[in-house]
């Protein structure tokens, strides 16, 4: 299993690719921007993007989707039923799917965005804007912030401490690192 990450200078939202070491069918998480570097990353590893996982439909996480559709025409999996008028497979909390040969588990964590989904693949947790290194996602009201905090606490922080968190923004982190150094969470755990 190969994990690749792309950190574009513009938009600075992370895109991840998961495929097998030999290439072939692969998953792309959050096509925030489709640029030549990302295209080369896919092609140099002989990947064919068959599945796109969208953590939420904010523009900086999906802006590259239309271009990606033209080249690879993947199945799009998201919390909403369509994005840019592209029909998606809408998924809910607790669903488990086989995508491009990988088992994907869906965790619904609302509070940052109503369509927010966290995806678990093996030891990796793709959290989008729900949780990043040392921070939780932004919320529009104190109610949604509390809702987000409680959802993270009950659905994410109870998972294996060694899981690697791959957020939509910023560097990778782990459940154990967030328990120790995330100021937003420390007071609630």
């Amino acid at each position, binding site marked *: *299993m*190969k*994990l690749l*990450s792309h*950190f574009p200078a513009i938009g*600075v939202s*992370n895109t991840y690719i998961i495929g*097998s*070491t030999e290439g072939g069918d692969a998953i792309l998480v959050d096509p925030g921007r489709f640029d030549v570097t990302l295209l080369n990353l896919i092609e140099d590893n002989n990947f064919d993007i068959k599945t796109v996982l969208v953590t939420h439909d904010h523009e900086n996480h999906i802006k590259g989707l239309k271009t990606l559709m033209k080249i690879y025409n993947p199945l799009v999996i998201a919390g909403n039923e369509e994005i840019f008028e592209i029909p998606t497979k809408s998924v809910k909390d607790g669903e488990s799917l*086989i995508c*491009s*040969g*990988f*088992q994907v588990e869906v965790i619904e964590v609302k509070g940052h965005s109503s369509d927010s989904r966290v995806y678990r*693949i*093996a*030891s*990796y947790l793709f959290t989008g804007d729900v949780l990043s*290194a*040392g*921070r939780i996602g932004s919320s529009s009201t104190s109610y949604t912030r509390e809702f987000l905090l409680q959802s993270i606490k009950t659905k994410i922080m109870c998972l*294996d401490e*060694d*899981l*690697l968190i791959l957020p939509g923004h*910023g*560097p*990778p*982190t*782990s459940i154990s*690192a967030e328990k*120790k*150094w*995330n*100021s937003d969470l420390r007071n609630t755990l």
Partner: protein
Amino acid sequence: MQPGLLKNNLKIVFEYKTCTYENCTKSAWAESPFCREHHPSALEYEREIRRELTIGNKKNENRDYSDLDFSGIVLDNFDFLYCRFTRVRFSGGSLKNTRFLMCLLDNIDASECVFTGSRMMSVLAAGSNFSDCAFTGSDLINVNFNGIQAFNTIFDESDLFYSRFINAQAEGASFQDCNLKRVDFTGVNVNDVNFSNSNPEESYISREDEK
């Protein structure tokens, strides 16, 4: 697809394995099936990995070196991609001009190490000890330095774009002539940190900056 054909069964980068010794729940050590305590020849195994690393290819990809003792090691000009160094002891080592791409350097002891001219990109280094280190002239982009100890550490002339130092201890650290754009210092006592000729105004010193 049948469950047996799932690609999840292939070797996973950063896969967390437990020791195969009966009833042991500790993490497996480096790429061995045992934890350090239950390894039948721990010292010999550690020496072999260290020897193989220092005389072998300088480009290393998808390797697990967790829990090894690399004290005083010289790994100048090495290239590490998607490697795991969790809890490794590097103290007193030299890692000049070394590149770490998407590596796990969490909870390592790297006190008194030389990282000058190094390049780190999308690295997890949370909880590590980098006290009395020199990172002068490094590119430390999108690195998770949350909760680190960096007492008297020199980051001068480095690009730290988008890195995070949340709740780090950095008394006596120096960030002179650095790019600090979107660096997060929330929870850091910056009173004893030198930001001369840098742009701390483009970083987050406290949460109030974000409002």
